[in-house]
């Protein structure tokens, strides 16, 4: 038996840059817009494994739509996408400020990732069920969910739709196809598969979609989701939002140096697409492909959405402690809002003036919603009735909950 001559050593991956270093994305190959082929939705997973190692991009550097993945959206659809993204970013900024002002205990932005949920919120319908994490506020906003209701949740005030039960931003709304967000990473992923299995079991036509972060793909739930999706051919779209960071850990800690996240699908025999997540058109087209596949009873697709977490992880985080402060500026896939704006302008369907007006409108909408929510109250000023603390544990409270409620005197 051979023995190694040199001693073994433990490898711990490190990002290329830490605070103080010059940002460097030279190791990342983003390919060319329009370069990746588009298989038929009926293609076998085995025939399209290479999709996991390429990047589907539609918008080129000049803002033109290129190649077979161009979803050919109408100008109205594009404009809606753009204004939705603007609204999401405006909402995020406002809520982030609200945290500084002590109006909420917590907030999480999705800055730089707006294209994902805003596009996908349109491709999936409200009858489908989305199983999001905490950075898909764009699903709600792009579907016209009342901003004030989101704020009521964030403020845990008397009108909080989920009765003050959860941390800010943990929305839940069945009517909008938005499953209750869990604080436990990953759990929603196999649940989405189960939900999709149920739709198939019933012979219905609803599909499910789920989102997970690059970091959370390491959870066992991710594995369970893909196994069950493949084995039972569940009509579900499994999105991996690879924003390259998990709080302070870079994607290498989740295995992202070794291969793409999209390639994880291969070991389950699932098809996967790897997509420029900052390209509204590419996200739309890939999602449409996967949704059609699911609706055609061909089963699940994994989509890796490659993006960058531009903001801090949450209001509790300070990214300058673990990555260069200006890293986002060097990130090659740019900003989803800027890119769609450029495209619309290139099409002659938009201009700076309309953009400025859209931004102003977004601020107005957020301000109006803020007024409405703040009139009810921000955190600590207003909250649901204390007796609701003992409700919804079970459909009906048992004697323990009744007595405990009595003890609180409510």
């Amino acid at each position: 038996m051979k023995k190694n001559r040199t001693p073994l050593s433990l490898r711990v991956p490190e990002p290329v840059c830490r605070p103080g270093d010059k940002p460097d994305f030279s190791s990342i190959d983003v390919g060319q817009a329009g370069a990746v082929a588009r298989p038929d939705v009926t293609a076998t997973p085995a025939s399209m494994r290479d999709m996991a190692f390429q990047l589907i991009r539609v918008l080129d550097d000049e803002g033109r739509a290129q190649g077979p993945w161009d979803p050919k959206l109408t100008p109205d659809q594009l404009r809606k996408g753009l204004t939705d993204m603007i609204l999401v970013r405006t909402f995020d900024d406002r809520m982030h400020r609200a945290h500084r002002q002590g109006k909420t205990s917590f907030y999480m932005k999705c800055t730089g990732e707006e294209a994902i949920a805003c596009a996908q919120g349109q491709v999936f319908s409200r009858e489908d069920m989305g199983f999001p994490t905490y950075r898909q506020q764009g699903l709600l906003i792009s579907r016209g969910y009342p901003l004030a209701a989101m704020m009521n949740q964030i403020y845990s005030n008397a009108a909080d739709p989920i009765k003050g039960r959860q941390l800010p931003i943990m929305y839940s709304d069945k009517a909008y196809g938005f499953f209750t967000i869990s604080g436990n990473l990953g759990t929603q992923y196999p649940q989405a598969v189960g939900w999709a299995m149920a739709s198939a079991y019933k012979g219905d036509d609803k599909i499910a979609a789920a989102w997970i972060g690059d970091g959370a793909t390491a959870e066992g739930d991710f594995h369970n989701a893909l196994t069950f999706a493949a084995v039972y051919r569940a009509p579900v779209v499994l999105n991996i939002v690879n924003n390259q960071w998990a709080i302070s850990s870079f994607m290498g800690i989740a295995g992202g140096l070794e291969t793409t996240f999209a390639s994880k699908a291969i070991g389950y025999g699932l098809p996967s697409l790897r997509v420029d997540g900052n390209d509204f058109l590419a996200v739309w087209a890939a999602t449409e492909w996967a949704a059609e596949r699911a609706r055609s009873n061909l089963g699940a697709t994994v989509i890796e959405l490659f993006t960058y977490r531009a903001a801090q992880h949450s209001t509790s985080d300070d990214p300058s402690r673990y990555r260069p402060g200006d890293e986002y500026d060097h990130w090659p896939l740019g900003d989803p809002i800027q890119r769609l704006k450029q495209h619309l302008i290139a099409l002659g369907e938009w201009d700076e003036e309309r953009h400025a007006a859209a931004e102003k409108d977004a601020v107005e909408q957020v301000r109006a919603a803020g007024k409405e929510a703040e009139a009810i109250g921000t955190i600590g000023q207003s909250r649901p009735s204390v007796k609701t603390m003992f409700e919804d544990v079970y459909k009906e409270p048992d004697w323990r909950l009744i007595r405990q409620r009595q003890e609180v005197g409510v």
Partner: protein
Amino acid sequence: MPSMNMIQALNSALDAKMAEDPNVLSFGEDAGYFGGVFRVTDQLQQKYGLTRSFDAPIAEGGIAAAGIGMAVYGLRPVIEMQFADYIYPAYDQIVSEAAKIRYRSGGEFTVPITIRSPYGGGIFGGQTHSQSPESLFTHIAGLKVVIPSNPYDAKGLLIASIEDDDPVVFFEPKRLYNGPFDGWHDRPVSPWAGHPLADVPEGRYAEPLGKARLMREGADVTLLAYGTMVWVSLAAAEHAGVDAEVIDLRTLVPLDIDAIVESVKKTGRCVIVHEAPRTSGFGAELSALVQEHCFHHLEAPIERVTGWDTPYPHAFEWEYFPGPKRVAEAIKRAMEG
């Protein structure tokens, strides 16, 4: 009325519900074509089709999660955890998700799932086919925990669990599948056939969750037990020659506190029996509740007879198992005060 053992009764419960409600389906490891390693789901696939009773990958967490997703959709899945000892990979999905989804969504999403699992010792199954993890679930707000001790209840409680709109963890004392084992492992075991509690009606009936069953009326001491320990307690009472009242709790959550309190107030003495290790077992909760509710009626310390604070040791099953002798000794201590 047909006489059924517990396996047949559980199978009959599933059969009854699947016949009547297309939203009821069953899956688990080896639970489809083969009908489960204990045969509880036998013939259900053959009768109701491939998609209503099927095999699952060996991924308890995935089984639970898929079941939760289905329940959220509106189905009433009954999932099987092959042995309770293997439920831990599903623990997160059960305690963080199934238990909390109704609450955290403000009541909008609900999880009417039933999680069946054979549990308990006495079958020479060693460390990983003998565990009794019920207290790990009774601690979790949002879960119900049900443990039948006989075929009649097994069917009625399983149906009630399936019909319940909250997640139910349903533990099946596997030592009782074939007969009312009383813990005298060195004596011949009796089968269910002919036992009054093995008279199981065909079709649907439900036993309410949260109601204990009085197994033996008595004046001197209250024995609280569930699962296999119900029969051990009965045997122990006889062995001790004491007029014990034996209560089968049947559901640990919700608990029939009134039945317990009434009995202990009457007898003034209480012995609690379970197979799980002693420390932080459900007996601790029962003991605390009894002394909180009956302090001034207690004439002797509440006794706990339990598994030891060790893993389940294969070769020492009967030293570990809280058999009638140990229970009888505890009864005597309780009587002496």
